[in-house]
Structures are given as C-alpha cells and as structure tokens.
C-alpha cells in the first residue's frame, strides 16, 4: 500500500502502490503497434486481393477453403514469400488476435518485476488459457 491517504468519505484508508508509468506506456505501444500492423496488412491484402481477382464472386469465396491452409505456419510463410494476398490478410488477422496476448505478456512481465506473485500467476493463467484456445481448442473443434 502507498502512503497516499484518501479523504475519509471514500470508505478506505490507503491506496495500493501504483504500477510504474512505463508499464502503461509499454502496453499502449504494444496495442498501437499491433493495431497499426494489422490494419496495414488488411489494407494491403484487400487491395492486392481485388487487383488480382477483380471478378471474384461471393459464391467463389464461399466455395473455397483457401484461408484454412494458412493456419499451418510453413504454408503461411511460403504464401507471404510469394506475395499471396490471402496470406497477407491471414497474417493481419493473426496479428490482431495476437496483440492482446502480447499485452497480457507485457502485463505479466511488469507484475513479476513488481514482485506481485498472485497477479503474475493470474496473468500467466490468462495467457495460458488464450494459447490453449487458439492452439488446442480451435484445432480440436475444426476436426469434430
């Protein structure tokens, strides 16, 4: 608890020690970089997609499973190396989904540095749950 004393009408006597300002700054940067990166990938991917396939219809899209293959990292890398717009769009989605995960990881780092064992454990649990959802639960549901 910090030494800061709130006025009596608030109903409590002392405030918790705040996290360092750089924890907030780092998280804001993580979120902004992740968002900008994914937005850029979305824009580039969409432009390339419609330049390459101007006459594609919604039926063509529904009939194809072309995005599923990019769930395999080696296929995604190969697609990106060839400038495949569907690979670029998929990377944009992966980046956007990974951004809050990176934010949770950043939070865990600062809680650990601040010697807050319970908060570190809670944050680690959240991170594990997010990874389990994406890496185990999702693929399991795909094959039901």
């Amino acid at each position, binding site marked *: *608890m910090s030494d800061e004393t*709130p006025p009596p*009408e*608030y*109903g*409590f006597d002392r*405030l*918790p020690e*705040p996290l360092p300002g750089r924890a*907030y700054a780092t998280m*804001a940067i993580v*979120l902004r970089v992740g*968002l900008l990166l994914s*937005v850029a990938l*979305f*824009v580039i*991917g*969409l432009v390339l997609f*419609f330049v390459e396939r*101007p*006459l*594609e*219809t*919604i039926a063509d*899209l*529904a009939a194809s*499973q072309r*995005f599923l293959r990019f*769930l395999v990292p080696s296929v995604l890398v190969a697609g990106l190396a060839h400038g495949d717009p569907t690979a670029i*769009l*998929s990377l944009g*989605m*992966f980046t*956007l*989904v*990974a*951004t*809050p*995960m990176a*934010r*949770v990881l950043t939070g865990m780092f*600062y*809680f650990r540095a601040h010697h*807050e064992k*319970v*908060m570190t454990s*809670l*944050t680690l*649990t*959240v991170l594990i*749950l*997010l990874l*389990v*959802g*994406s890496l185990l*639960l*999702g693929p399991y*549901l*795909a094959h*039901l």
Partner: protein
Amino acid sequence: MDLLLIALLFFLVAIGAGFLGSLAGLGGGVILVPILVIGFHVDFVLAVGASAISVLATSTAAGATYVHDHLTDLRIGMFLEIATVPGALIGATITIYLAKLGLYPVLFVTLGVVLLSTIPGSFLRHRSEVPEGVVPDRRARTLGLGGSYHDRNLGREVPYMAASTRPALGVMFGAGLVAGMFGIGSGVLKVLALDGALRLPMKVSTATSNFMIGVTAAAGAGVLLAAGYMNPVIAAPVALGTTVGSLAGSRILPGLRNEVVRYVFLVLMAVLAVELIARGLGYA
C-alpha cells in the same frame, strides 16, 4: 454479386455501425452479426468471427488511448480477465458446436434475446461520476485492486478501490460467455460488474471495460480462427469500417452524443433482435 462490391458494402455498413454504436455508447459490434446474417446472408459463425475481429480492432484502438492516459486499472482489468477469458472460450465452443449440429435457430433466438436484454441494461448507468463510501473486500485489499487517476473535469486526483470482487467475477464470466458466443463486446454486462459490483469511478470503469474487451474478444476470435470460422475477406473490411466509424464517433463528433442517437440505435437493435427471433422460430 461481385465480391468487391460486397466488401465495399461491408466496409460502409461497418462504418455506420461503428459510428452509431460509438455515439450510443454501446459499440458497433452488437448489431454487426444480425446485419451480416440478415442483410447479407453471411453464415452465422463467419459473421460472429468478423464481429469478434472488429470488436478486437476497435477495443485495441480505444484501449491504447485509455492505457496511455492511465485511466485503465491494469490490476483490476487483468484480475477480471481470469473470468472473461474462460467464458469466451466456452462461448465460442458452444457456438461452433451448435452450428456443427445445425442448430442455427437456437443461435438466432439466443442472440435476439441477448440483444433485447441489452436494451434495458443500457439505461442502468445513471449514477454519480465518483462513488463514495466504497468498502473494499479482502481480495481487493490483498491484490491491490484500486488506485487513483487525475480527473480533468473535477480538477483533482480521484482515489478509488474495488468493492465486491466475487459477484464481479461471476458477471464477468457471463459477459465473456456472451462475447465468445456472438463476437460482441458485452459492454453492458461489464458495466454492471465494474459500476455495480466493484463500484469504480465511471471513467476508470469505461477504460477498464475496454481494456478487457480486447482480451475477451481475442479469446473467442482465437478459437474461431483456429477452427476455420474466419474469412478475412469478410472480417477485414468489417474491422476496418467499424474502427473508422467508432473513431469518428468518439473523436470527430462528440457533440452528437445525445439521447436521440441512442434511441435510434436501440430501436434498430430491437428491430434486428425481433427479426432474429422470428427467423429462429421459423416466422420469417
């Protein structure tokens, strides 16, 4: 119809949803799924995936600003994510299961009921900016769930502590479940927990809710993405449009935030909800 034209329509509709949702204080994600399903005949689960991606994008954009301004309570946000994330994982799983079983009417009716129940909940937030007489529970004291922020309007530092953490966790699990099932932010439920149970100041509550919406949406979106229920050609224009619309709503035209816009949005939501329920019950 050409895919390019449809993508442009997705983008424009998402701008409108994000803009109106932002002005109404409910977020555009809440009406995206019914619009995509009813208006564009997009598969229900793909629409949920696109909505989750758009909620993720808008909450990341707003969340970065709130965190930068120190309005977000990082401890409270991360503490409550322990409830929202499992809820979202279970919610996304339920939706995928129901879709695989062909039980789309159940999904339609449930989303309709969720939307209708959101309407009275959106009127709950009428209390003072800073609650007084808050008694933090033992868990809040142990984990240090509180702090202070500088309120520019009040011109002073405002101290706060979280009150009842147990009911807040329960409500947050429900919020995560609904968010995972339908790719929405569940802001009304989160406000119920943060304002009602934890009794946080309004600004901290709003910022912390936004902070959690991103991780909750990522949990549901991660499952849907890995299960193959995401299509970037649908999700990307929707996410870009909603982000543009919500940023415009929150930054460019704050003067428009009034009750009329709010009622228009709520009426639109009610119409979509009734249409969903009617379709689910086989009347449309």
